[in-house]
């Protein structure tokens, strides 16, 4: 949503103008409360969407802003999910500390792998992210004494949040919890991408070789943002483990990495709200079409991807922005 920079504007003013909240944004966040009143029977779905949106936001940070194409982002989601599941299984079911520990664990893996990620581009980078993701999947599959392997992790017991709010069948607590975490992380991300650091990330996306020449070290910036993104993905994974009390290998699978990529691209990469909009559309559509054989669902996802690439190169939000721009262009 970059506003066209006016001439003779000081950098501080430019950044401040970017940070200001647009009325539509406020409308959007108020609308996220609607499921409580209008669709109470869909609160579990709403909670799934909030978690997927958080995961999509984390991918958007590296994909849309730093230009890192990852086919293995589920590695950090799964890392967070298994960490949160395991600590509650071994007797510590307090959700908030569990969330933080899980995010820390995912961030640790993210930091370790970021040294590899920062050095490569193009196909090698895609293959490395894919390989690391598959490696973690196979590791979790092999270590079935710890993770339960293909049967999933059993025996997760999460204590009520603040010792008061227990998980209910309808998902009031689950949605509130996921939404609050999503919102807090969103505000932090929003601040981050409008900071000078965020601007230099966009510079790296456009040209990673030239950025060091104007004083922005590409590699260390990529390491930082990759770690932050891993922490966010870990938070999303931990949320899904805590709100559903199950973790399965699916959390680490290639399908999950592919799904989140579809969500971000569908909504529009590099637009902050793109991943959120994409995950809403993706999951509502899947919920509505769930009566159809999942094999055929895949067909529509494939068609959607082809269409987005051919006709909506910047996703739905990109298309809307273009429409607005065309309108403004007319006298």
């Amino acid at each position, binding site marked *: 949503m970059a506003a066209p920079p006016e001439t003779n504007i000081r950098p501080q003013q430019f950044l401040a103008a970017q940070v200001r909240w647009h009325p539509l944004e406020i409308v959007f966040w108020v609308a996220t409360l609607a499921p409580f009143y209008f669709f109470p029977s869909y609160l579990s779905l709403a909670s799934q969407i909030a978690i997927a949106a958080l995961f999509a936001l984390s991918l958007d940070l590296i994909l849309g802003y730093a230009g890192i194409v990852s086919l293995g982002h589920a590695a950090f989601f799964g890392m967070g999910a298994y960490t949160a599941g395991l600590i509650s299984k071994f007797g510590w079911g307090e959700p908030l500390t569990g969330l933080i520990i899980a995010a820390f664990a995912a961030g640790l893996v993210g930091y370790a792998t970021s040294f590899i990620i920062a050095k490569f581009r193009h*196909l090698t980078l895609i*293959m490395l992210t894919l390989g690391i993701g598959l490696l973690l999947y196979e590791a979790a599959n092999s270590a079935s004494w710890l993770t339960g392997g293909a049967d999933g992790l059993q025996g997760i017991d999460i204590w009520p949040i603040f010792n008061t709010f227990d998980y209910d069948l309808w998902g009031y607590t689950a949605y509130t919890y996921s939404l609050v975490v999503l919102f807090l992380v969103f505000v932090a991300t929003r601040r981050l991408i409008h900071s000078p650091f965020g601007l230099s990330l966009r510079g790296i996306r456009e040209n990673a070789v030239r950025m060091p020449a104007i004083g922005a070290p590409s590699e260390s910036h990529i390491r930082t943002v990759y770690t932050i993104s891993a922490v966010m993905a870990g938070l999303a994974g931990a949320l899904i483990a805590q709100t559903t009390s199950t973790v399965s290998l699916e959390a680490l699978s290639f399908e999950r990495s592919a799904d989140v990529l579809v969500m971000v691209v569908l909504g529009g990469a590099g637009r902050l709200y793109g991943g959120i909009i994409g995950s809403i559309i993706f999951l509502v559509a899947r919920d509505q079409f769930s009566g159809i054989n999942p094999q055929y669902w895949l067909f529509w996802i494939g068609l959607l991807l082809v269409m987005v690439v051919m006709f909506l190169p910047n996703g739905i939000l990109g298309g809307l922005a273009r429409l607005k721009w065309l309108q403004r262009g007319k006298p």
Partner: protein
Amino acid sequence: MGPFVAVMFDGFAYGMLLFLVSVGLSVTLGMMNFVNLAHGAFAMLGAYVTVTLMNTYGWSFLATLPFAFIVAGLASVAFEQTLFRPLYRASDLDQVLLTIGLVFMAVAAVAYVFGTESQPIHIPDYLRGFITIGGANFAVYRIFLVSVALLVSVLLIAGLEFTRFGAQIRASVDNQRMARGLGINVDRVFAYTFALGSGLAGLGGALAIEVVGLDHSFALIYLIVMLIIVSVGGLGSISGSFVAAVVIGVSDTAGKYYFPYLGAFLIYLVMIAVLLWRPAGLFGKR
């Protein structure tokens, strides 16, 4: 000693299969830098051509193989001309998304037409059974597989080395702009190469049914293995693909035989190690 030799041979045969399926991807990626994740879909197409011709029309297995090659090659050119061509200068992300979208559609379409069950295939009797040499059993089918793959490799390398078209391919892979400047129609060379590579994938897919089975998810499962071979071998290198396919085929088969608890762990580890050591792959130049 017997089992060791047999495992190595099985791994080598599997590697030959992987080579057939992925060599086209390597050359086209090296030439146009086009990340074509739909390559596995053409292998799957070839496999289903063989299954249909055999089970519905009663053709013999060997007679279907040329058709697997031709149909996959022709279909790939149709896609190349219409969908892929506009994306040669697009970003990695767009290429990945479009081609993986096509894979999803292919997987769903096959599930719709053929169902999700594994497809049966009855290879002729003279390709069944074992030959015992020095205490080790060699499956006749795998010997057949290795012979076909070696024949194809010799033809490919000879064609690339000694024909005019081969020289044009090498020139286009090495330096596309210079090749254009010398009057080579790189787009047309690329279209032929693309058809040839996808045709080989179709042939490989048809030959793979007996070894790894065939169902609708073939294109997705083998996509990852193909990409591993291409990136380990190095883009645009036929000998690189050959070596990588053998390394991956042998380490996968031996890994599953000697360390079954590791699962597919080993080949991912091999890939990451190779890429960290040589980011452009074993034989890659860039």
